[in-house]
């Protein structure tokens, strides 16, 4: 590897180099370098419209950057076709969004089991594996409830379980606490960071909230599509 190495961890799991993306005339990303180490938790902060979500989408293989490369464990992923990237997202990545990612008609445990089933785990095993997440995340007894019967914080914890259940290498979260009050938001961030670390996964979280960013190992500031300077975060 040559050039600037913004990696913080000893063995980077995910690396983005020289990422650029524009939408028509609007420049969303303008040459971003970012490396995420194993079990590292990185917060991406910045004003609205600065390109945080776009960066996350490029790193996660949702979007193809116009220029630059993304590597996962040494394998280049941004050049893969949509089908391969889709499989990659399903097997190696986990996602937590602001809200609405749970299917309303599925009980919580099936929402968690769904990605496992999509990866080929038989249903019975998938549900059994899904259930093991509920206790540690403080969701004991809510396995059969449907998303509509859960509070916002509980629903986000189910989403965390769903993201982690397939044992991903990296979890991506875009404003995971954006729809929650502060106390619930903090509790959710604590669970998210602890659970990803505990499961040997890295975490990339986009947020507006500095107090949310404090839960992460490191904060990256994005402004006008560029990374400003790495700031050591509170552990």
């Amino acid at each position, binding site marked *: 590897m040559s050039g600037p190495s913004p990696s913080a961890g000893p063995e980077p799991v995910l690396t983005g180099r020289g990422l650029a993306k524009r939408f028509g005339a609007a420049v969303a990303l303008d040459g971003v370098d970012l490396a995420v180490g194993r079990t590292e938790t990185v917060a991406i902060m910045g004003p609205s419209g600065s390109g945080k979500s776009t960066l996350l*989408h490029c790193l996660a293989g*949702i979007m193809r950057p116009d220029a630059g490369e993304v590597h996962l464990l040494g394998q280049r992923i941004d050049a893969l076709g949509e089908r391969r990237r889709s499989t990659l997202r399903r097997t190696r990545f986990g996602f937590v969004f602001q809200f609405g990612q749970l299917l309303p008609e599925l009980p919580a445990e099936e929402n968690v089991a769904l990605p496992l089933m999509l990866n080929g785990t038989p*249903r019975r095993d998938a549900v059994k594996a899904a259930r093991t997440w509920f206790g540690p995340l403080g969701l004991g007894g809510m396995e059969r409830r*449907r998303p509509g019967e859960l509070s916002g914080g509980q629903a986000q914890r189910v989403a965390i379980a769903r993201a982690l259940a397939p044992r991903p290498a990296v979890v991506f979260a875009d404003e995971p606490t954006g729809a929650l009050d502060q106390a619930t938001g903090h509790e959710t961030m604590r669970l998210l960071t602890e659970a990803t670390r505990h499961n040997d996964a890295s975490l990339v979280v986009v947020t507006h909230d500095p107090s949310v960013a404090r839960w992460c190992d490191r904060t990256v500031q994005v402004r006008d599509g560029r990374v400003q300077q790495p700031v050591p975060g509170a552990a």
Partner: protein
Amino acid sequence: MGTTLDLTWRLLRGGGRRNLLGAALALAAVAVSTGLLLFAVTANLAFAQRARADAWRHPGKAGADPVMIEALATDHVRGEPITVVDLAALKPGAPAPPGMPRFPNPGETWTSPALARLMKDLPSGQLAARFPARAGTLGRDALIHPDELVAVVGRAPGDPAMTAGRDRLAGVENTAAPTRIARYSTGAAAFAGVYQALVAIASVLMAVPLLVFGGAAARLTVARRDRRLAALRLVGATPGQVVAITTAEAVITAAAGALAGTVLYAAAIPALTRITIAGGGWYASDLWPGLPVVAAVLAAVPVLVGASAVAGLRRVVVGPLGVARRETPPAMRAVRVLLLAAVMAAFAGASGGLTGLGRLGLVIMLVFLMLAFLAINLAGPWVVALIGRITVALARTPARLLAGRRLVDDPRSAWRTVAGVALTGFVAGFLALLGGASSGTKASDRLELSVPPERAAAVAEQVKGRLDGIDAGVAVRPPSTGGPSADAAVVTVTVRGGASAVDRARTALAGTVPGHVATTPADEERGRDQLLADLRTGALTVLVVSFLIAITSAGITGASAVLDRRQAYAMLRLAGTPLRVLDRARRQETLIPLVVMGGGSLATGLFFAAPFAVGFGASGAVTLAAFVAVGFGGIAGASALSRPLLRSVTADPAPTPD
């Protein structure tokens, strides 16, 4: 009010492409509903008009102060019936019949346009010579349908035709003995009454799925708005404002849809006039419901949709956060299915005696039919939920699990999609068995003339003299013990040389026995088969309408299901769920209940028709096969329309709530 309308208009216009698509779907649904509603209403009006056009031909009871004599007979040409009305004035001021400028003079024949054409086209020895000279053409008030063959013959009161009795064909009111009357009948004759009852039932059969569907359309206008309205509430709009905005939006969409539906219906009239009932098509003017009805429908549809929208909105208004919450739906009670079972059991118990009851049996049967129809509609969602639970229990793949969960979550919406076909399957099953009736097997070359036994030999001689030059054999059949004319002998004339020879013989025999018309067994069979044929035409029409509803509703329900879940679908796709899995789930959630319910209702229809089965003929098998092909193909096709929609809502990499 002004600001509400302004806001509404902005919401409608500024809602973005997908909301516009939702509005377009709702509009299409309302348009189809309105068109079909107009059809259902107009069918009743059109049959009422036919009954009026028919009423005057039936003399009814003898009047107290008679001014004229009226008699009715049915002759045939080329196998088609001709309605012959004989009229004689007893006093100078006898009233003109409907469709005629004056009372016919003795020795005059007034004919319908179709009969006039036929008289011109055929040699006079085959048709025209049966009647006195043509004096004029009957107006449409005298006619049931444009192609009807009708002759009004003026006679002197002393004419033998005005004094001799008539014999009637069994069960069909196409003959009436000369009767002294003071005015023409206006009430529907019994036979026309049966038709009116049948069309009323058909309207009910069409209206049930129509209401289900219309309700869905109304909710569609609201569903898309749920989240945005909740947001409106969050920013402090009063419940009243929220209700007003949404209702105004629903009403505007519905008004446009109702207008489009009316235009659609008007455009369909030329095609509809070709539906053949009782031997003929329709006057276009009979199928136009008239301005008052149109105005009423145009006013009522938006109001109904608006009311439904308000009902659907209650949830939103109750609490700003209430919308996002979705609880486990309360389980539906099995009572719904017990009801259906009870109706079927009662029918099974009663069906044995029904065929012996004549017209009462028919009425009872139709009542059962309606009850079964309503019961199926009640039981439907319950069964869909059951199918969903079974699907979930057996599901091994994610797609199957998703499909099953959706069925359990919202069985009513899944039922709306398949209801049309399920209800139609019932009709189709019914039709398949009725379709076995044989037709055209009776002799069409043997004319029969019933006469008093003592005159039989003389009439036979007279007939032989008249048939000069026609290759025919004349015989006398003594009175039989059974049959409708038990005490009459029958002079039979077997004609060789095809239809034109038979018509020449009919013409030669005209007036041999005053008031009696020579008919072939095929003529009589035709009269009896007409009702059955019309029943099938009617059922087929209901079938087509149901399919229209089913296919439209499948398309709309599928699309709105995708729109409703677009955010979750988009996020699933972001997380790497293949579009293929989502698409398979979407397809299965329609096809699984369709196969089970369509098949089930088909079996129910077969069950109900079983006592009336004349035999499961080839046409029945074709009906069934066509039903299966068109129904399933149409629904699968319509629901496949939401596939590109699914692709487009999940293509957006950064889904945002709107």
